[in-house]
């Protein structure tokens, strides 16, 4: 059987290449693919079968060097699949045992996994039951722009072409519009609109996104993070440090604008504050995401 030969080649290669990480990964990848495509792989209707299979493949990848076939090459593939199935079978038995069903053959547990075509209904139901919907809060915030953060940031030629309008067109509208389509609608140059979008609107939207991240905001006030953030300062301007910026941009209500921060700190360029915030402060905050 040609499947056997393929298995045998891969088994040989994984073992030969155990010292070469890239080559080992490549062979292992193909071996894991071959296992899943093998008609000999144990199947089961338990809804957590795929969890058991995932754990089995992880175990195979870790323990492959410990596989000791009873037979010499080239007939090891049968032994190999028995070895894989033994572990998978144990995992499946554990699933039934934890459900309190010891008789696997008679068990028939319905599969709760949605299908692609049932996703819409599932999501609608989930959203209806969800008490706090961050996505909805953010959508409302962008639509209403209560602090004027997005609306006040616009292309030079026309205040109507501002980040609030763009965010609605590009992100909230369904289906979303492309920058090209919005540029055509507004009658402005595509590149000018895109540059405005990328350099001005996207940083503002990232800022808004973080203002809705409650766990992160709680983390920011922890002494450990406060200390780390305070030490990262804009050169020559110790007051422009990541703690001060985080506090003013994320924790203050209503939000303080970057322009106001720059003025209060006597910084000549607003762009310097943005650059420090995006380049230095955001990567630190990212590390503290839970």
């Amino acid at each position, binding site marked *: 059987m040609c499947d056997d030969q393929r298995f045998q080649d891969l088994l040989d290669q994984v073992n030969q290449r155990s010292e070469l990480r890239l080559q080992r990964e490549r062979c292992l990848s193909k071996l894991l693919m071959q296992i899943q495509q093998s008609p000999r792989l144990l199947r089961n209707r338990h809804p957590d079968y795929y969890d058991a299979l995932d754990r089995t493949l992880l175990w195979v990848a870790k323990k492959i060097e410990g596989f000791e076939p009873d037979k010499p090459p080239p007939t090891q593939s049968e032994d190999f699949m028995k070895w894989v199935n033994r572990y998978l079978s144990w995992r499946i038995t554990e699933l039934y045992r934890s459900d309190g069903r010891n008789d696997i053959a008679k068990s028939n547990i319905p599969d709760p996994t949605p299908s692609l075509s049932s996703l819409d209904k599932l999501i609608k139901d989930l959203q209806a039951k969800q008490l706090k919907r961050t996505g909805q809060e953010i959508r409302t915030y962008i639509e209403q722009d209560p602090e004027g953060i997005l609306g006040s940031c616009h292309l030079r030629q026309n205040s109507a072409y501002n980040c609030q309008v763009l965010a609605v067109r590009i992100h909230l509208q369904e289906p979303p519009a492309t920058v090209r389509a919005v540029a055509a609608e507004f009658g402005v140059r595509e590149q000018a609109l895109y540059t405005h979008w990328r350099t001005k609107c996207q940083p503002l939207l990232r800022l808004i996104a*973080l203002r809705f991240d409650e766990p992160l905001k709680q983390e920011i006030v922890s002494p450990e993070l406060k200390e780390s953030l305070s030490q990262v300062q804009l050169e020559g301007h110790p007051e422009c440090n990541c703690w001060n910026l985080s506090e003013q941009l994320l924790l203050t209500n209503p939000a303080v604008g970057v322009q106001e921060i720059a003025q209060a700190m006597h910084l000549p360029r607003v762009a310097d504050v943005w650059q420090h915030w995006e380049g230095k402060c955001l990567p630190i905050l990212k590390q503290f995401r839970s």
Partner: protein
Amino acid sequence: MSIATLLRMPVPLPREAHAKAAQFAAEQATTAKGKQVYLNTLAVYAVHTYLNWLEISTDLTQSDCWQPGLRAIFDIADLAIPEVGLLECRPVLPGDAAFAVPISATDRIGYVAVQFQEDLNTVELLGFVRAAADQLAQSAEQAIAPIEIQLQDLLPLDALLNLLHPEAAINDLRQWLEGQFSEKWRSVEELVPSRFRNSRSGSRSAMGSNSPEQEPRYAEASSVTRATAIQLTQSGQSGQSGQLEQTVVLVVQVLSVVAAENSLNVCLKLYPDQASTCLPSQLKVAALDESGTVILESQPKEESVWTELELLDCRPGERFSVRISIGESSVIEEFCV
């Protein structure tokens, strides 16, 4: 590469993946946005699972799509690979021939296509496209519309593994013809004494579609030849302790053939190092195709001075590797055409 020829990697989606996807989708404002987030989350989870099998570190919490505000605003499906960057994992729905990379996801190291079917218990990883440095710069400056990637342009997942191991880069033979090689590839004269090059004590194996009268070696439009030393470390033979180091020289000759447009003939030749008089006994050399299957191999006779494998009519995009081994010890060099 044709989508039909790509090896699809099935990845099971455990209940935990669906639970996370459902949690993220429930937070969204609309059903359509919820569905986008659900599928993006599963796509990211599938790539994370695959890389974890291979013991490649990933960090879901460092991925922007794991941040509630960012996933609510942007269409993102990024997976953070520590010390490497963000990998975008894009869902592909049944019947799709391409997938779009949103403009908010242009700062990625590459894109993995994740095929969904009606049954959401498993997905298939279709392949990978690397975001080249020039493409990235272009994307950042000019991505007016989402970038569309055709599934037929995807590379096998091996290309992703290559990206995650830059130290084990593949030798690009087209670049060789343009005079670009890494430092380890030297001139033949530097590594192989003329007494070996002129020796008639050797063997040759060939594979490919050139007819015998079409002598490949003399019909080329251009050619380049480079050499590198290959060290093999053998553990002590029975009754001996310690390790035995043996060195051979791999010479690669690339020939661009006039008759076959864009095809290359590649001649792989092994010689002893300068301190030896013949190739080591037990030496084996094999050419392997992209899937790791041996397509040509040779075991030189006792006291041979060289052995040669010739791959004819290698087509653009093809990849192969050469495995040189003595007993349990082996070294692999990889090439693309």
